[in-house]
């Protein structure tokens, strides 16, 4: 095992999959000589050549649309959207085309396609380099959506996504890129899409999260542990399909559930998780299902004080955990 950063795990997964399978290639803005603005594709151009590491024109709908076409031909494109905020021009290609290809052709055509996009804030990105966009996609049948929190899961899920025969949106929290490190095996492995992971065992309250906030949740869990509150933490990892049984099991374990995400609350992933629990584990509940999420504003402001005000901090989470535990 080696200690790797989150972004190294992205890069390793890409390199290993490209070496393993000649139908894998990457395309996107600045992915070539620049190695991506976050350096996720660094070195790939040198190793695999310009044909398989394609600097695309600045046009996201074409990046996704061309990738769809290539995937129909049997390639396995990994498209990079430079910032998740800029996936919006490609929504039509993603939802009308990639998501519906297999269904509309009655299983005749399909898209083995991965779309990687750095999302999330807390990095002084301002309104348009900080957004969480997963809620626009986790609703859509035909898509798979993952949002890993650890380098281990990044590598295993990205490999699984590339080998998947259906379109996968792969959301990388950009604040994790360099701040999160973890053990990553040398040997080849995958993490199955659609499975959550218990990130912390606990008995008093259940906290469900994903991405960067998972780490804040774990920190806050340590804080309240000192006060005698034992938090059980579930990392969703996959947002579509959601791991229903893991969610219900975690909810039933403590009967007190809090869902945490950076994205704003209304209609966010937490809505579905809460609804699922209200539907299938209602009588295990000892407290209302709590959601701690970003505020109902369009995005995270650039000004650092406003940004801080937006972000869910350890103290805010710890406060919510205490409240839930006391209930």
């Amino acid at each position, binding site marked *: 095992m080696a200690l790797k950063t989150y972004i190294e795990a992205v890069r390793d997964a890409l390199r290993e999959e490209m070496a393993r399978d000649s139908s894998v290639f990457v395309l996107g803005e600045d992915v070539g000589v620049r190695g991506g603005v976050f350096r996720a594709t660094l070195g790939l151009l040198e190793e695999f050549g310009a044909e398989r590491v394609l600097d695309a024109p600045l046009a996201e709908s074409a990046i996704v649309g061309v990738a769809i076409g290539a995937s129909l031909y049997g390639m396995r494109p990994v498209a990079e959207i430079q910032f998740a905020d800029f996936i919006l021009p490609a929504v039509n290609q993603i939802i009308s085309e990639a998501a519906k290809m297999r*269904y509309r052709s009655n299983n005749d055509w399909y898209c083995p396609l991965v779309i990687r996009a750095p999302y999330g804030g807390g990095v002084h990105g301002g309104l348009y380099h900080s957004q969480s966009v997963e809620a626009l996609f986790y609703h859509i049948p035909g898509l798979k959506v993952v949002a890993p929190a650890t380098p281990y899961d990044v590598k295993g899920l990205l490999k699984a996504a590339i080998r998947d025969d259906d379109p996968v949106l792969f959301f990388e929290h950009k604040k994790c890129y360099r701040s999160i490190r973890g053990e990553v095996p040398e040997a080849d492995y995958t993490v199955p899409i659609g499975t959550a992971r218990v990130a912390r065992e606990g008995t008093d309250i259940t906290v469900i999260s994903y991405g960067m906030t998972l780490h804040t949740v774990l920190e806050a869990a340590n804080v309240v542990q000192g006060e005698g509150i034992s938090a059980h933490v579930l990392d969703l990892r996959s947002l579509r399909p959601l791991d229903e049984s893991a969610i219900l099991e975690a909810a039933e374990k403590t009967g007190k559930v809090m869902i945490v995400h950076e994205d704003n609350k209304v209609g966010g992933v937490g809505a579905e998780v809460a609804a699922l629990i209200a539907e299938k584990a209602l009588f295990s509940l000892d407290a209302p299902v709590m959601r701690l999420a970003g505020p109902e504003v369009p995005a995270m402001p650039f000004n650092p004080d406003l940004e801080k005000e937006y972000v869910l901090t350890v103290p805010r989470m710890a406060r919510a955990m205490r409240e839930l535990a006391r209930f």
Partner: protein
Amino acid sequence: MSVEMRNRHEALGLSREDVLAMYRLMLLARRADERMWVLNRAGKIPFVISCQGHEGAQVGAAYALDRSKDYVLPYYRDTAVALAFGQTVRDLLLAAFAKAEDPNSGGRQMPNHFGSRRHRIVSGSSPVSTQIPHAVGIALAARMRGDDVVAYVSFGEGSSNQGDFHEGLNFAGVHRLPVVFFCQNNGYAISVPAGKQLAAARVADRASGYGMPGIAVDGGDVLEVYRAMKAATDRARRGEGPTLVEARTVRLTPHSSDDDDRAYRSREEMEEARKNDPILRFGQYLTETGVAGEAELRAIDHEVQMEVDEATAYAERAKGPDPDELLRYVYREG
């Protein structure tokens, strides 16, 4: 009649058999289309969208492709292209009746949303122009794999105003990919005339903005379309990159069976359009050049009608999809 006129198809390398097959294909598409309107008006199928008036452009284009290996990404009017690439009239009618055997979608999509892997017809959707970047991706992938493949993609002039047109052509231009972009300009996007859709004199004028040639041809003349498309596919095959070809056609029907075009097209205009019926014009060429006599053309028509009758009977009787199919093939199964 001049010798050049007589020899137009021969000069293009097309044999007598070729042009008769082309004529037959145009007529087959037309008669199948006409049948669907009859079925629609009889309340038997809920929707029709037509190729009528476009058959010359479509057959000219399809014959310029290599039907044994090229890929096509047709739009909803491209009935004759689907037939040229191997779909049958039965297939068309199965789709019209939305039966389980519909090769495009098992009855899930509206008619004329073509797609069948074994014919290298890529599945299409309703939102216009999304197929344009797909064609570019197919061409890119084929080149990566070292395959000798040209991708054909078609769309209307109205659809050439979508962002995906621009982004797709630009990508293909930059990477000099083997794609032929085929615009079937019938002068209308539903009710909106071309002049309100775009200010350029010709859609083909857009090609220079993508560093590729742009050719406008008379889409009512199947041989002229063949000539232009052959040059474009040859160019693509030689690795010289994409071409935008615009064929001026006429739309001989309302936009679809849901439309009523009397509000926006005069009957005089329709009369004019009918003079440009590509089947009429090609029939005249064939008789005037002595390739076939009137009787021979009538015989073809008769044969084609029988084929359409048989297909209709088959498709009407065919099984619909099992209701349980609703939930299948959202993701890979097994």
